[in-house]
């Protein structure tokens, strides 16, 4: 029933903002992201900003968490817990707001306090959904920007990484299920682990490919399949004087 789909129980989270406690309901269900009317380009695509190009290393800001906790980092948090680490704001409106105003400005800006990473969303028609988009964008940014040290001797890739590898990888067991692609929310976790490995081998795709039981070509294709992943790898390679992947 179409009406049913539009109305789902919401999961409620509480966070603090301007000393006033309030809660936001986060809507876990999102319509698959269509990219309609690409010929139109009526407005710049959703922006994500982060205020740094340097990578954050997990150990730098783990405080009282256990080693286990800091190793796993933020992407393993539930939406609710991740949201608790964020400061949320809308863009300050001028004027009295409320009934005075009709402006579909429902942009949301999340600042992840432990890392300073900022994600925002303004493309949706409801503030509610912008909150959900900003949070999922924050996950991708964390995956791209927060690095963990990797033990290469011996290297044991986490399951999330195995799941984004193509089936032909020789270390990917059949129990990993079908390959997870960039549109799956769980891709961020695998991407983070992949970047950790690429950083550990200082940008060498052929070295990383060996650890993953893949040919260099197959790993390159995987990296190129996601624009932000490709950019991150190429930025690293550029900083080491290596040629970009194309």
């Amino acid at each position: 029933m179409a009406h049913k789909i539009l109305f789902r129980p919401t999961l409620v989270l509480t966070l603090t903002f301007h000393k006033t406690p309030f809660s936001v309901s986060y809507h876990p269900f999102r319509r698959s992201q269509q990219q309609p009317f690409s010929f139109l380009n009526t407005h710049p695509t959703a922006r994500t900003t982060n205020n740094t190009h340097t990578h954050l290393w997990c150990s730098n800001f783990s405080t009282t968490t256990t080693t286990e906790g800091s190793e796993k980092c933020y992407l393993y948090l539930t939406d609710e817990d991740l949201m608790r680490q964020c400061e949320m704001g809308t863009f300050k409106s001028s004027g009295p707001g409320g009934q005075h105003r009709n402006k579909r400005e429902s942009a949301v800006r999340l600042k992840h306090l432990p890392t300073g990473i900022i994600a925002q969303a303004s493309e949706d028609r409801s503030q509610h959904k912008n909150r959900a988009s900003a949070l999922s964008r924050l996950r991708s940014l964390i995956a791209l920007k927060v690095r963990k040290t990797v033990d290469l001797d011996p290297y044991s890739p986490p399951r999330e990484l195995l799941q984004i590898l193509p089936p032909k990888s020789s270390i990917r067991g059949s129990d990993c299920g079908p390959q997870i692609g960039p549109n799956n929310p769980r891709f961020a976790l695998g991407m983070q682990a992949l970047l950790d490995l690429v950083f550990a081998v200082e940008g060498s795709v052929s070295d990383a490919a060996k650890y993953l039981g893949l040919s260099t070509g197959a790993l390159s294709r995987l990296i190129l399949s996601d624009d932000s992943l490709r950019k991150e790898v190429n930025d690293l390679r550029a900083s080491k004087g290596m040629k970009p992947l194309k």
Partner: protein
Amino acid sequence: MKLTLSSVYRPHSFPKLLNCSSFGILGRPFCSSALSSSPTCVKPQVPLFLRPPIYSTKLCDLKKWHDWAKGVSLSIGSTFVQSDNGADSNMLCRELKWLMEDAVEDHSLGMEDDDRVKMRIDIEELYCLWTQRVQERRPFQYVVGCEHWRDLVLSVQEGVLIPRPETELVVDFVSDVVSENEDLRSGVWADLGTGSGALAIGICGVLGSEGGRVIATDLSPVAVAVATYNVQRYCLQDKIDLREGSWFEPLKDMEGKLAGLVSNPPYIPSEDISGLQAEVGRHEPRLALDGGIEGMDALHHLCVGAALMLKPGGFFAFETNGEQQCCALVDYIKSRSGRSFCNLEIRADFAGIQRFVIGFHQ
């Protein structure tokens, strides 16, 4: 009584419109036996995105319309921002994209100019609609007949206030309160001046299927009709009881029984109405905005009534014009019925403006 999609659609009730300047451009009123029980005969309109895709146009014609509409939007620059803090070109372009989303059925458009695109509205009408949006400053939400609010998509039309993002927070307050209090969750709630039904439907969602009912009232027959439509679209007619009448008048049977009471009543001081943003002042109903000389006529009335209608421990939340009204309202409550209420609090909206007064009945 379930409202089926086919009864929502009524494919043949949307004749081509000839007169572009009149309101009601969104097609002939929706008509269904399911709605004939509403007290008056106002027929709610079907939002654009729910209409059947019975039109088709060539991709090149759609592009042509789009380029024209975009040009119109860009020519506005910051004119509206300067005159009354209205939308700028960027905002209009974003609205244009949303209008496309609602008007075009098949989003995976073909590539060739001659490919045909299925539409929910005639391309000629799109020209009219965008002219209304920009020249007459008709609110975008009335143009498409809906507003996205929380996780809902609510039908709106002339005569009904377009729900505001600020008001979304009232549902969160209720959600917090009932998450700690089963008694309130299973009780009867009231939303006075429900307009499109936004708060009533949102609250019904957080009460859950095991939770209590909501009674929603409004003085405006158009509001009651539109709220009825929205309630039926979400299949909540068993949970939400819509009553036409002034504030507490239709609630006489509920004296001392309400678990909760919420309202976003008209609160703009009368003298501010003429200076409002054109979309609001020229197009939204004055009944929904004008709160009397100081803007607090309805708020005062609601506070007095709340003391009477709420059961012990019952919760209330009211939206106000801002800090000044919040403080004045708290003072009013304390001086008039100080002992009736406890835990009075002022809460801010997302922009940091003190917006809401909440509290509990003793």
